[in-house]
């Protein structure tokens, strides 16, 4: 599978999805007015990846800001990953949040309570 590599912009995150390495990474800001446009190809890629997943998939979510439009799309990303996990593949989510950013930590905990994949909350310095 071809990897997805997207550079970040002021309104959209940088993305690295690499099937060979089992890496799913979203970093930066996700605040576009219409997030579906941005996330649809990512969710489609994961759908395909679910057929041939790596033994171990590491998911790094390191967002500075995200809007509510993105929050639904991020849930869709997690739902695809949950299916991979359910099919007895190892999936680990590293949810990064900047110190003092309780809102971002809480957002990670909200996803953790909805999605059945192991989450690790990682605090990073501002």
């Amino acid at each position, binding site marked *: 599978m071809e990897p997805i590599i997207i550079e970040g912009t*002021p*309104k959209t995150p940088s993305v690295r999805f690499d099937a060979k390495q089992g890496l799913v990474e979203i970093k930066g800001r996700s*605040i*576009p*007015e*219409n*997030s*579906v*446009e941005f996330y649809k190809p990512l969710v489609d890629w994961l759908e395909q990846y679910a057929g041939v997943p790596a033994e171990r998939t590491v998911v790094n979510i390191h967002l500075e*800001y995200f*809007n*509510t*439009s993105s*929050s*639904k*799309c991020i*849930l869709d990303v997690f739902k695809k990953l949950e299916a991979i996990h359910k099919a007895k593949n190892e999936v680990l989510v590293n949810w990064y949040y900047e110190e*003092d*950013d*309780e*809102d971002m930590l*809480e957002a990670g905990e*909200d996803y953790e*309570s*909805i999605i059945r994949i192991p989450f690790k909350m990682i605090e990073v310095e*501002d």
Partner: protein
Amino acid sequence: MSFNLQESYKKMNEGDVLLAYKGSITTELITNVLEVIESKLDDINTASAVKKKIYNVLVESLQNLFHHIDDIPDKIKDEFDARFGVLVVAKEKEMYRISTGNFVRTAKVKQLKEKIDKINSLSKEELKDMYKFVLNHQKLSAKGGGGLGLIDIAKKTGNKLEYIFHNYNDEFDFFNLNVFISESKN
């Protein structure tokens, strides 16, 4: 008394104004406003967690405007651009205030009022549950709105949403929403 936009705008501009805008709410405008506010916040002596909250809430407020503006009344169509909206970010006492204003069809007012009243009646825990429920169960609209904006704003600020509907004519109301972010962490 009939609704006067200038007066309403003047009232929104009370306090220490960081940013004020009235006109067309477009994607480009939102990008520009966010850039301006980010550099202004850089210069302000407030905890970075509070700055992040202001930025986050501003993003939601602007995108709420963007997704929910109804076409403006014919009478003032010549006066203002299409997709007319108002935005003011100001500081009053210990609070940052984000005020937005836009025309909405009077037919929608009741539903919107009920939604805000419902949000305002919920505790912190109940808001969190509502957020998770809507996140997990509601589909995104074609424009990318998810019905989560106001819930998210209330959840992040921990303050009640303040609103006024000014009746404009038979068809339209002007919806003024004031959102408050406390300067000290609550």
